């Protein structure tokens, strides 16, 4: 049997990026999926991006990933969130045409010469001597590879709940994978249980949107004009082809929930898994916040030619008849037809403290985990991990050194470090507030932060690299022009254009209109934000840069993975236990372990320096 470089288990957003990134490096890749028709499907909301997630998509794109390109090619409404704030926190988001999105990704994977898609269920991993060797499929066949990336999403011992009906399933209509979950437990991984949910879908043709708008219960939400792309490579003008609608829930709908809440598996004790607090079910919203008279809901089309509306904000696991009653009691939806009820899904996840920053397990060499199996939620979070796992699985198969992205470089780094350092108590979602350096980790500069790294790692192709070089050239040239061109103020005094731009009310667009000669190639959609932010907020960016440098020493002080914490004087059993669980790779990571006091960190730092002194190996041996 020929030995593959990388096997990816699962064709969700993590699996797709992992396979893509490994193949980009020239690896031979097999992607195992239950059915190729569900590759890159969006089982929950029909959207990509948003706060922190939009930045993440740009980062995935900057590293040669699929998500940004896919959403730009198939998005049906584009909107930058946080426009009322400064450009440093703008977050691009797009509504997706679900079917076209999935079809686009599927086509890209199929067109990739390194990727073979294998339909079938993986029964178990083949492991020996602390190393992963391949996978065995349910039909008895085996595949061997140097690295395996597990991206099984909600499928590990998944149980779907709709009211009093619970059945094993990864998503509605798809079988759960029970064998792999059991095997991971047996192999000693710390497995926990989480829960997530999705709202009912309504028939678009059964809703009279115009009447809702006229009655004042629906508010139309349009996309931006012009739309902003999520990929740095997109140059075609994007189009907004659909509207969304905003509405508020009513007391009648809340009453329907309250009257039937004992039939919700969330409230009668059936569901034990922990759900995300930031994405509460409608039951939770009604029961936990009884003072709120109404809750915000959005009606979002799942595609252009699809008769399906996603009710954002109405995630429920009540019985189908109650869900129908709740929907019918919402303003403007009295005659709406429910196509599918919402549901809750419980699934196993592996505590990500098991992982290195490359997303490789410490337990088995060559075994990587990415996506919801690590306790995260969200397509973007999954895709980002898939990318990192794919890059590193590929590099390991090729015998190359691992790539680790820091918290100061990307939300990708923030996410991975949070996961491997803190572990998960609830489904993990990225927030901009999780980043220490929010002003540095912007959507507009993701390529400047990461594309060079991606080029070195072999995942940025010539097309993207050329586009990046020309953008960097444009930014440099236009910065030079701003620094050397004088600008006449209304008061007829002359200032440098760059100084004029520092004024809050002056924009690059207004300077260009006033005759500042920017290069003709400059792109308002991506370049203006970068140029303006770097000029207007230079002082703040410098301060954050200085903080990064101050912390760099701890971030770079490495701790050997086999470092023995036991018997070190001054540490409690509890602290030793935490350290052994996380096995931090750097002193910086130690500082972020919950429950570790600064005194313990300093003590460890002292122990480390002494251990380094006692070492008699020649200096630089472990660099």
């Amino acid at each position, binding site marked *: 049997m020929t030995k593959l470089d990388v096997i990816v288990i699962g064709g969700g957003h993590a699996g797709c990026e992992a396979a893509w990134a490994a193949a980009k490096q020239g690896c031979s890749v097999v992607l195992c999926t239950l059915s190729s028709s569900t590759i890159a499907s969006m089982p929950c909301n029909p959207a990509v991006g948003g706060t922190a997630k939009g930045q993440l998509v740009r980062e995935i794109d900057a590293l040669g990933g699929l998500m940004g390109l896919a959403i730009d090619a198939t998005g049906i409404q584009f909107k930058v969130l*946080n426009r009322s704030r400064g450009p440093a926190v703008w977050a691009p988001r797009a509504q997706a045409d679900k079917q076209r999105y999935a079809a686009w990704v599927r086509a890209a994977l199929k067109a990739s010469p390194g990727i073979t898609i294998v339909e079938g269920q993986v029964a178990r991993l083949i492991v020996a001597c602390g190393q992963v060797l391949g996978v065995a499929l349910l039909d008895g066949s085996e595949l061997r590879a140097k690295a395996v990336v597990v991206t099984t999403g909600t499928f590990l011992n998944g149980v779907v709940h709709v009211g009093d009906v619970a059945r094993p399933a990864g998503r509605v209509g798809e079988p759960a994978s029970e064998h792999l979950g059991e095997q991971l437990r047996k192999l000693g991984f710390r497995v926990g249980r989480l829960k997530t949910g999705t709202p009912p879908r309504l028939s678009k043709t059964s809703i009279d949107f115009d009447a809702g708008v006229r009655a004042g219960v629906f508010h139309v939400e349009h996309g931006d004009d012009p739309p902003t792309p999520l990929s740095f490579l997109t140059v075609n003008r994007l189009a907004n082809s659909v509207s969304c609608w905003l509405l508020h829930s009513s007391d009648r709908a809340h009453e329907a929930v309250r009257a039937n809440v004992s039939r919700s598996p969330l409230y009668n004790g059936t569901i034990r898994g922990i759900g995300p607090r*930031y994405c509460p079910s409608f039951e939770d919203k009604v029961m936990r916040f009884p003072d709120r008279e109404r809750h915000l809901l959005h009606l979002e089309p799942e595609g252009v030619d699809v008769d399906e509306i996603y009710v954002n*904000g109405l995630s429920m696991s009540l019985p189908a008849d109650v869900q129908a009653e709740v929907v019918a009691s919402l303003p403007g939806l009295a005659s709406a037809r429910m196509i599918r009820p919402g549901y809750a899904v419980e699934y196993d996840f592996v505590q990500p403290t098991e992982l290195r920053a490359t997303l490789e397990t410490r337990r088995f060499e060559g075994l990587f985990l990415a996506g919801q199996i690590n306790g995260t939620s969200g397509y973007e979070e999954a895709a980002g991990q898939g990318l990192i796992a794919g890059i590193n699985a590929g590099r390991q198969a090729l015998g190359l050194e691992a790539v680790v992205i820091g918290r100061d470089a990307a939300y990708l780094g923030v996410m991975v470090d949070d996961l491997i350092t803190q572990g998960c108590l609830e489904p993990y979602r990225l927030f901009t507030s999780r980043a220490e350096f*929010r002003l540095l980790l912007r959507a507009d500069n993701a390529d400047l932060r990461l594309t060079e790294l991606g080029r070195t790692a072999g995942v940025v192709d010539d097309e993207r690299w050329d586009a990046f070089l020309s953008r960097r050239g444009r930014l440099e040239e236009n910065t030079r022009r701003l620094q050397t061109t004088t600008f006449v103020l209304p008061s007829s005094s002359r200032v440098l254009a760059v100084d004029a731009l520092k004024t809050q009310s002056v924009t690059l667009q207004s300077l260009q209109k006033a005759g500042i000669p920017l290069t003709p190639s400059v792109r308002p959609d991506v370049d203006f934000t970068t140029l303006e932010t770097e000029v207007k907020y230079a002082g703040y960016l410098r*301060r954050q840069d200085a*903080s990064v440098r101050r912390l760099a020493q701890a971030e770079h002080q490495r701790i050997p993975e086999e470092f023995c914490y036991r018997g070190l004087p001054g540490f409690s059993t509890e602290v030793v236990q935490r350290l052994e669980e996380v096995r931090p790779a750097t002193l910086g990571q130690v500082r972020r372990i919950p429950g570790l*006091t600064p005194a313990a960190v300093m003590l460890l730092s002292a122990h480390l320096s002494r251990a380094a002194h006692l070492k008699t190996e020649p200096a630089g041996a472990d660099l």
Partner: protein
Amino acid sequence: MDFPDEGYHFIEPTEVSAALQALRARLARLVDGRARGQLVREGARIVIAGTPNAGKSSLFNALLGADRAIVSATPGTTRDLVSARLVLGDYVAELVDTAGLRESDDAVEQEGVRRAGQAMGHAHLVIVAIDGSRPVLPGDRAVLARAAGGRVVIAVTKADLPAAWPLEDVARDALAVSARTGAGVGDVITRVTGALHEGDASADHVLVTNQRHGALLAAALSHVEHALAHFEASGGALPEEFVAADVQLALGALDEVTGRRTPDGLLHEIFARFCIGK
């Protein structure tokens, strides 16, 4: 900023200044507590200064004799400074006598003056001794001028001899003291103890005794001051993510003190109190 669609506004722009000012005041109190914490940890340094023959050494001995809680006396630790430790109220104090300075020649005198000056510079409190039995000398005025600005207690010595001038000539709150009879020594101790505890009542109840913590609190304070200055300079137009950036740096410094990381705690608080999310 993470939930732009939810319709929550956690802080109105008009409230930002007031919130930052309150934060600054709280941090400033903690930073002040750092000085008090240092007093507790390292002890107060009290220096007796004055011209030669002003009665410094006699006063030094009288102060020690009057205080029965002498911890140790180590005369002659340096050639020209003599110090002893005693308890004054809540603090352990080190009493330093700049005696031993003799005018043998100019160079030595200059060196002595330099060291005495240095000792005064590092003192938490200076007792200026002035001989009340002879006219006030320019040197007395110089020592007084030097001590001004810090905490000062003026002791007019040799009160058992006829006074050469009224106390008020030098300062209204000068104390008359006689090392020989012991008269007024208790007053000096009461005054010194009171001066060391000055401001304790209004100070923060949190005492910062760790030097590293003090530095981190000072850093947090400077970040808040930066936020406030820039927000007010912009007339309230500075987008909130920049205020948040400074506040986050301040929080980072405080986290270094407490060992806690805030993002998760903050998010927990928000999710518990507000119905957020789709």
